[in-house]
């Protein structure tokens, strides 16, 4: 009762392996163009990979050996029991919202009246019951996306694929839809592509990070996001990530050339590649080097001040710091000059950069 996938698409430079356990929800995170939609498209049967193999609950979805030899299996999309909510809503323009949602059940042979009841229930779940009679052309962007979520769920697939389901939703329904997803994904196998770390935390049992068509990290949300191994994951988690080589009790960074004192007890032996992660809120920015021995400081040029409501983000090439609007006012004139960014040792997390396997899929 699992899903496993191997996949190579030469043209898009994508080469991935993915397992999903029964009932597991996997979140796929990665930059634009990393290959996330390609991954989902292949599973759904809309993109034909150059080679690869996928199996869902013992059924082979496709089996395309790399060498032309061997039997090629390609199961058409509608026989895969896989439902895809694509990045664009793509509601059928000639059907009402209700009939769009009822489409999946009806295709499965459910009689019209029952299918419409099911559809109405799912519309209610996404808070769109009032839109049932509308045509897609008469819906706002977010409304359409909600109907599309309902449509994907209503087809009750063995594996549910969601490509950024919440991106177009406003803050007033996104939490409700997210809670609904959490409920329906609870015992369902699902792969969800998202750019929102909150989705990963609330919905996913496991997070897979994809960059440039390759899996670069995976594990539980906490593992992957608290001790990020890529700038991308660190950005998602809202952490500063500094990678370098351990030299004694310092972390030596190549670019920009910097040395940061670390705790003697930190992980990694001399010469090992190690990483340091720290929240911007913990970092302070001062004109003079702080004397505090419990902090380690680096001198870096202040590039930019970005107001973010409660606080202001001060950026250097290496580190970002969240400072109070009052402090930021004092720094305003200093943009472009070198300041001291300091990290409390207690807030800094230091860990080996290595590829050691994280918790395997359950």
């Amino acid at each position: 009762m699992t899903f496993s996938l191997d996949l190579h698409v030469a043209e898009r430079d994508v080469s991935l392996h993915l397992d999903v356990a029964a009932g597991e929800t996997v979140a796929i995170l990665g930059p634009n163009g990393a290959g996330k939609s390609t991954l989902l498209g292949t599973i759904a049967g809309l993109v034909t990979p150059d080679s690869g193999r996928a199996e869902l609950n013992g059924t082979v979805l496709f089996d395309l050996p790399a060498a032309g030899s061997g039997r090629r299996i390609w199961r058409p999309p509608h026989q895969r029991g896989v439902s895809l909510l694509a990045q664009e809503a793509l509601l059928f323009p000639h059907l009402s919202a209700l009939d769009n949602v009822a489409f999946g059940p009806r295709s499965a042979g459910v009689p019209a009246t029952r299918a419409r009841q099911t559809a109405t229930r799912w519309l209610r779940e996404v808070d769109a019951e009032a839109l049932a009679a509308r045509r897609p052309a008469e819906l706002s962007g977010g409304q359409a996306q909600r109907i599309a979520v309902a449509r994907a769920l209503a087809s009750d697939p063995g594996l549910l694929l969601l490509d950024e389901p919440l991106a177009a939703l406003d803050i007033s329904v996104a939490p409700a839809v997210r809670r609904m997803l959490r409920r329906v994904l609870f015992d369902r196998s699902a792969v969800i592509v998202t750019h929102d770390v909150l989705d990963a935390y609330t919905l996913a049992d496991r997070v897979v990070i994809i960059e440039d068509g390759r899996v670069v990290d995976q594990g539980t949300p906490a593992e992957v996001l608290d001790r990020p191994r890529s700038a991308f994951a660190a950005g998602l988690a809202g952490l500063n990530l500094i990678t370098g080589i351990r030299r004694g009790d310092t972390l030596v960074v190549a670019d920009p050339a910097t040395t940061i004192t670390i705790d003697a007890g930190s992980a990694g032996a001399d010469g090992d590649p190690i990483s340091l992660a720290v929240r911007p809120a913990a970092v302070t920015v001062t004109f003079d080097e702080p004397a505090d021995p419990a902090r380690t400081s680096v001198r870096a040029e202040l590039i930019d001040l970005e107001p973010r409501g409660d606080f202001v983000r001060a950026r250097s090439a290496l580190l970002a710091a969240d400072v109070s609007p009052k402090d930021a006012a004092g720094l305003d004139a200093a943009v472009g000059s070198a300041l001291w960014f300091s990290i409390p040792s207690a807030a800094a997390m230091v860990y080996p950069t290595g590829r050691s396997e994280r918790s395997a899929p359950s």
Partner: protein
Amino acid sequence: MTVPRWVFAMAGIGAAFVLLPLVAMVLRVNWAEFVPLISSEASVAALLLSLRTSLAATLLCVIFGVPMALVLARTDFWGQKVLRSLVLLPLVLPPVVGGIALLYTFGRRGLLGQTFELLGIEIAFSTTAVVIAQTFVALPFLVLSLEGALRTVGSRYEAVGATLGASPTTVLRRITLPLVLPAVLSGAVLSFARALGEFGATLTFAGSLQGTTRTLPLEIYLQRETDPDTAVALSLVLVVVAVIIVSLAHRTGEPSRRRARALS
């Protein structure tokens, strides 16, 4: 979209070019004798036969043409391009030659003649022959215009339907066909019009017997020999019938509610 002014001008010239001959024809109609001319037994029989056969031919065009357009637009196979050109041929074949080719095929001494004779089916000189001739010349219209529409629509919605578990047939019935319904209708209208106006192939292949094979265009042609007034009057009838049927089809096909709301 705002259409540029000069486009209107060009369209006006084009429309005038098509409409002026019709006006000229209407001006030549002998209105005093119009009703007697068109209500002769022969004329009425020809009109009814034309309507019956053209509708039957249109039906056949839809039944076979829609699958053909689907295959041409949605699949890729060796020889597809040649096939597409070949399907066009009845268009380019002068109808009389088309009629000869049909004779060579379905005639008593034709390719399939023996087969049909054994089955006890007589095609030549029957109304069936008229429908066959009309279908033969009208089919490419539906296929070509529908294939274009299918390509334009693309297959994204079909892909979504498939991932929702719809079988190819369900996708066809509930997504593809509704999406291209306007194109199917306008293709059917084109086919119907072509079938209604069909003359050469019918004459050559089916013959011309009042009530059985003599359609309105054949009647017009014949009348022209002796009585140009009747010919013009009947032509006008043909035109009016066509306009009515075409308008009806367009009314049905117009997804008016949807279009009215769409952004301009």
